[in-house]
Every structure is written in C-alpha cells, then in structure tokens.
C-alpha cells in the first residue's frame, strides 16, 4: 500500500502530541490529514477552527495551516464569520463532543440549518476528557463518569440524528476502529458544498475507559467494533437503534 506522507502537514516542532497513550484523537488526526492529502487540497487555503478540550488540540497547534483555537463550545460561529467574510477559504471545525454538542449545541444546530459551507468533524469520546471525565450530553445511559458515579441516569444525544433533523445535507458517523471508512466519510464531507458533519466515535482510555471496565485502548477499540452497526439515513432519523448499538454509515 502506498502510504501518503503526512509529515508535511504537521508542525514538527510541536510533536509529539500531548495526547495520552492510546488516545483515539491521534487516529482521527491521521484520518483527517490522509483525507486532505487524498483530495489534494491546498493546505495553505485551509482554516482549522477548534474549541477547547483535548479534541480541540487535534489541529492546534499540530496542523501547519491557519488554525483558530477559540473558546469552549464556540468554534462554529468563529468559523462562520471567517467563511462568510472569505468564502474562498476551506474551513474545517475539529472539536470534541463536550465542545460541539454539550456547551456548543446551539451553534451546531444553527450552522446545520443555515447550511453554511463548512465541515464539522466531531470527536466523540463520550466524555469531557480534558477536565477529568465528567458526564457529557453524549455519554451513553448508565455509563460511569466522575459526575455520575452511580451511572448516567439520562439518555445521550444521537448527534447525527440531530444534524439530519436540522437539515444537514451531508452527515456521517464512523469510529476510529474503521479508519478507512472514516477517511472516506471525511473526504466526502470536505468535498461537499454546504454544511457537512462527521461524527468520529473515538476513545478516551484515561477518563472513560478506566471508569467503564475498559482500561486498555485495545478493549475500547474492541467495544467500538462491537457496538457499531451499519445503518441508513432512515434508520437514524427514525431513532430505532437496537439496544446498546450505534448506527454508522454515510447517512445522506
């Protein structure tokens, strides 16, 4: 296999990344850069916008392009302003589930509704990794977190269903356990004219795995393989996901 050289997209002086051993964010970072390389996009014309959290560090400071590392939950409106003022820029938001869906959910739904021509890549590790593993709006029911020691009494968001419900025309979800499909979904999202959304299911062994009987990255990847089942747009929209499973696929 011909492996593309992604070093040229990275600021070598800031490597290695600050991510914990076994963190899934590195796999997603790799997938994004390969997708960009495969599409032959002009990196100097790309703007990567992120919020606050471990996932927000995927582009900033690692990517050797323009990066805007913003405030917690707000990367989408920052990206919207930049894109509206200069539509020539290829604007990509990469941030976490806590950032984009919990505190920043309002901006996500409005960007989808507005159909602003940006790509949002959401790294869903189902928890607030950076602040010590607290409950997020994406934490599955019954999971243990620092703030739900008895298990999460609430239900989680299906963020793809949310994006589709807001009218997003390009929505996909894959896990880092299926990097080839994830890459293809990112490629299609980057190519799409209009609002595109990719949910990347990923792993936080440090804050989520340890508390939920999956202390090793390997166990977490295995669990992702187990729970992900292929689904269609209709199935996601209907919300009839089988107990303990999550639909993956390109839903549009």
């Amino acid at each position, binding site marked *: 296999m011909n492996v593309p050289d992604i070093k040229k997209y990275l600021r070598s002086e*800031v490597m290695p990344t600050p991510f914990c051993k076994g963190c899934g964010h590195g796999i997603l970072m790799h997938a994004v850069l390969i997708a960009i390389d495969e599409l032959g996009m002009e990196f*100097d*014309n790309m*703007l990567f*916008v992120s919020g606050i959290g471990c996932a927000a560090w995927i582009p*900033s*400071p690692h990517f*050797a*392009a*323009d*990066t*805007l*590392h*913003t*405030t917690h939950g*707000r990367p*989408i*409106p*920052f*990206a*919207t*302003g*930049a*894109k*509206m*003022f*200069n539509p*020539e*820029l290829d604007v990509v938001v990469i941030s976490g589930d806590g950032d984009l869906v919990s505190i920043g959910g*309002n*901006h996500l739904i*409005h960007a989808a509704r507005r159909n602003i021509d940006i790509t949002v890549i959401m790294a869903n590790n189902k928890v607030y990794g950076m602040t010590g593993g607290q409950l997020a709006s994406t934490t599955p029911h019954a999971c243990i977190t620092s703030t739900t020691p008895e298990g999460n009494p609430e239900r989680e968001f299906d963020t793809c269903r949310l994006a589709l419900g807001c009218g997003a025309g390009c929505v996909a979800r894959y896990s880092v356990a299926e990097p080839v499909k994830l890459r293809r979904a990112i490629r299609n999202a980057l190519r799409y004219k209009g609002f595109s959304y990719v949910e990347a299911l990923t792993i936080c062994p440090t804050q989520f795995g340890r508390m939920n009987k999956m202390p090793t990255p390997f166990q977490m990847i295995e669990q992702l393989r187990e729970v992900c089942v292929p689904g269609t747009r209709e199935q996601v929209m209907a919300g009839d996901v089988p107990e303990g499973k999550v639909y993956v696929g390109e839903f549009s």
Partner: protein
Amino acid sequence: MNAKRDETKQEKRMMAGNAACVEGALAAGCNFYGGYPITPSSEIMNLMARRLPATGGVFAQMEDEIASIAAVIGAAWAGAKAMTATSGPGLALMLENIGYARATETPCVVVDVQRCGPSTGQATRPAQGDVMQVRFGASGDCEAIALAPWSVQEMYEMTVRAFNLAERYRTPVFLVTDELVSHLHELVDLSAETAVLKRPETRGLPPFGDSATNAPTPMPRFGTGERLLVTGSSHDEWGYRKTTDPTVQRKLVERITSRIAGDRNEIAEVEEINTEDAEIVLVSFGFSARSAYAAMRPAREAGMKVGLARLKALWPFPREAIRRLGDGADRLIVVEMNLGMVRREVERVASCAVSGVHKNTGEPISPREILRVIS
C-alpha cells in the same frame, strides 16, 4: 492614513444616533457585521442589514450574542473590519469572547447601547450602568478602550475613531452609548474629515506583537500562507501555546496592557468647559453630560463658578486630567445614570471633595436635580 472629505455628503442631515453610528462604521471601512437584536441597539443591526451588502460587506444575523462576537472575531482574522452592537445583557454574553479578542489582539468594534439594568430591567429606558462591565467584565488582567459619545455627531465621529483605535492597538474597542444618545435625532455633518487607518499587508512578521517594544505588529489574515496559530491560551509572539511559562504569560499581558495604558492621555480625551476658574467641576459623559452642561449656565448666572469635564472616553480612565481638576477645584460632582461607577474612579484620584448626582430609574438626570446639589 487616508484622509478624505466626501464632497457628495456635504449637507447636514437629520438622523438618529444609531443611524449615525452605522454611517460612521461604513466611513471607517466596516465590512462585516455580526449581531443579535436587542433594544435599544437594534436599529444599528437593521440598518446594517440593508447598507452592508450594498457596499460589498457581509451581514450575519447570528443565533445569540456569543455567536455574534465569535463571528466578528473570525471575520476579523479573515481580513474584515468587523463590528457588533448590543446592550447590557447581550454584552454579558459576549464578554468571554471579548477577552479572547484581547488576548489574540483582534481588532473589532463593540457598540454597547446602555439600557436600564440589572438583568432585563427597563429595556426601553436609558442608563449608564455598563461602565464597569466593559472595563472588568472579561476574565484576567487587561486594559479596555471605551469611547462615550454625547451627540449624534459624535456617534458618527467616535465610531470612526473606535475603528481606528481598534486597528492601531489591535484590540476590541467599545463605543459606550445610551438609549437617549442612540435615539436622539440631530443634524449631522457626514462630510466631517475622516481619517481611516488601512490594514497593511505584511508577511512573515510575528503575529502577536513585538515583545521588545510591546507595539502591535500589523494584523495578518487567514488564507495568505502565513500558517497562523491563533489561540486564547497563553502564547508567545508566534502564537505557540505555552500555558505554564511565567515569562510568556507576563510578556503577553504586558503587550496587551502597556500599549493602551501607555497612551492613556492620548486615548482618554476630556472636553473641559469653564474649568479654568471653576470651584465646582461637574464630571460627566454621554447623555448625562448634556444635563450637566444645561445646569452649568444657570449656575454661572447665579454667580457660582461651575465647570464641566466631559469624558469622551471612559477607559482608559483619564486619571491625570481628573487629578489636575481635583487639585484646582473645591468639589467634583459626578453626574451619571448609575449609582456611582465613574464616581468611584474619580474618588480614587481626586484630592478634593467628590460627590455625585446619580439616578438609575430609567429617566435622564434633569438639570434641576444637578442644580439642587450644586447650590
């Protein structure tokens, strides 16, 4: 600087303060507006929605004030001269990102049309209760620039100045007005000389200031191959995040504060009227300064030596001017539609007695109320 006098706009026109603000923004080269409606600022947004696209600019109505200022900052980094307008409650939502704009040296203009608080308060009534919110609302150490117009003409001129100061110091600049000045209708001369600062196109300079002099470097923009690293985390002059380095942190705060504090006297203009012989000096700003001005004449006619110091900027606070006035007068009386925000600053620097005429009932202060305190 590109000084121009627009011959087509020679006649004086009757317009409202908020409309003059829009004209000033356009004259200053504003080409992005991001906002969310709130009384008594909404006319600015409504007018921008029509005027900006017609002049090649971009208008964005966002989902809330947090998104509005975020879009403004994003647009500024994409090359825009950007602004937003709001009122106290909306400003409260913007403050985290205003702190971000300060830390990232992002030029932009934020108009705050003050209404009567706290909270939703009296939405259609005037007040001057955001004096401290604009100064201390965001987290961390900073210096704020806040201009305070008292007339429709100044709504025009100070909006231009706000844009120029934002460019010069690479920082968000507030235009702090109030419901009365914003809704006042007066004759405005739009042909007034407007010198507009242009953003130079430079390459390869550190994006975040010269740490030897603390002077700002020219504002770069996305999409030019500069590979900009912009972050609100503590960073060095190239934008590299260094969040545990005391020297980097000290230098960052020094950079963004010293350049404003160092030019305090130049930024913080004070208009003095009849202060040379004054025993009593009224200190005021915005609409309240008009009441103070109106009270001054009958007081003088009654033989009292009363003067007026009108603060054209609230921040940085004109310490030296107030100190000097306090040394020469018996009494400084601060006139403001709040319970003593500017008075607190005046008390900190004046050597003479300081009192105030304060009102926060959603009504302007009347000249008679001031006269009662003077005599």
